[in-house]
């Protein structure tokens, strides 16, 4: 039971991390090509930039809430099933740390993009 829960949680944590990276990379790609989109005025480019940053910020907020839930779930599993085996705990901690780092990097990238605008 605990092993299934841990494997499922690892998958969900990785997915959240990948979601944060996807948002960050596709925002970067969008902003990089903004000036190459034909028939777009300066005002329209600024509007598009503002809209994309707003959309990605909302999505990253959702990913962050999900990540906080994952942290709580790790604690819940330990509370329900007793102390986790050392290997499983280390694996979950590593996945959580990787997800936190990716979300933090995406957030920092978003902030830089917003400041540039």
């Amino acid at each position, binding site marked *: 039971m605990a092993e299934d829960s841990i494997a499922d949680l690892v998958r969900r944590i*990785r997915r959240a991390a*990948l979601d944060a990276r*996807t*948002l960050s*990379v596709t*925002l970067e790609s*969008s902003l990089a*090509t903004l000036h190459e*989109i034909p028939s777009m005025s300066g005002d329209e480019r600024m509007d598009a930039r503002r809209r994309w940053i707003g959309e990605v910020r909302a999505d990253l907020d959702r990913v962050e809430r999900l990540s906080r839930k994952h942290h709580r779930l790790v604690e819940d599993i330990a509370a329900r099933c007793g102390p986790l085996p050392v290997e499983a705990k280390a694996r979950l901690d590593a996945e959580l740390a990787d997800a936190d780092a990716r979300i933090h990097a995406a957030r920092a990238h978003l902030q830089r993009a917003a400041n540039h605008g």
Partner: protein
Amino acid sequence: MVVDDRAEALELLEEILSLEHGMRVVQRLSATVDDLAAEQPDLLVLDLWVGPAQRANGWSLACAARRDPRLRDVGIVLTSADRRSLDRFADPAQRNDVVLLSKPFGLDDLHHAVSSALARRSHLSRVAPGAPGP
């Protein structure tokens, strides 16, 4: 097969498609229809604007794939930050079974687009198995 002129986007799409959809992914910074046919892909993920000329190469490639009997039932996702162009392509995309995906996007958006393109591919295979090109 993924065609995009940004290396980071290619790496990301490879990671997602292999992890989430169990696909073997071939990356290309640019491609011709013969390159596509040589790989016989189940799915094409194309960026609308690729290459130094920034022409609508992704759309041309999607249309060429649909006309080519070797590729006519491949699933196609066309991505772009240029929402105005994507809007312009909405009707022909629907007629040609091309799924449009506007950037920036999240994991669920991509997952939905890929699933939709693969579902259309299955439909096309059933409707016209081995049908010759126009």
